[in-house]
């Protein structure tokens, strides 16, 4: 019954490292999203993609990039991790029809030390 899978549940990385967060969905959805969630700040959209090789900046794209080489996979990249990127990262998948729901992964809790 798994629909959206994030590659890691917990991750600890060092400052300056290049970090890849992977997300895979099995629903053939066109739209995929990356959010970060910090206490008191809700879900903030980092990047989203509406098709293979297409990407759009969300509300807080600085310090991040993304890759969508295949429809089912959407990767979030931290080119040079910093301590202020310590957060919970959530991936979501959405069919695009306004009457459908979005499905979320279980989240990756990233700590940058």
């Amino acid at each position: 019954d798994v629909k959206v899978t994030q590659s890691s549940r917990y991750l600890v990385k060092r400052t300056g490292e290049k970090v890849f967060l992977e997300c895979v969905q099995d629903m053939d959805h066109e739209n995929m999203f990356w959010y970060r969630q910090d206490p008191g700040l809700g879900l903030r959209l980092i990047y989203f993609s509406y098709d293979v090789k297409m990407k759009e900046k969300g509300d807080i794209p600085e310090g991040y990039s993304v890759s969508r080489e295949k429809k089912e996979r959407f990767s979030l990249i931290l080119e040079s991790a910093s301590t202020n990127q310590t957060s919970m990262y959530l991936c979501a998948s959405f069919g695009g029809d306004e009457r459908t729901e979005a499905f979320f992964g279980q989240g990756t809790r990233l700590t940058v030390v």
Partner: protein
Amino acid sequence: LAKTTQPISMDSYEGQEVNITCSHNNIATNDYITWYQQFPSQGPRFIIQGYKTKVTNEVASLFIPADRKSSTLSLPRVSLSDTAVYYCLVDPSEAAGNKLTFGGGTRVLVKP
């Protein structure tokens, strides 16, 4: 894109009904209203969606007035396990670029 406004937090007691109202004054004709529930350390999950009037499922009811500028999520007879953050979302149409943006949500605390 329609922006939503909802209370930051609400407290309740077991067995009570909880009503959370969300304002979305700029909702577009094609937009649906969707509510998600999020437990700590988990991703949000869908609970209910509607376009107008009233929708009910096994978890909640959703009331939408005729002007659709607000909606109210109703959780009947809450239990401790309903403690969570509830997000109101106005679903984007393809014309809006399918940008799913969540607001801050409403933190509901159910007390014994």
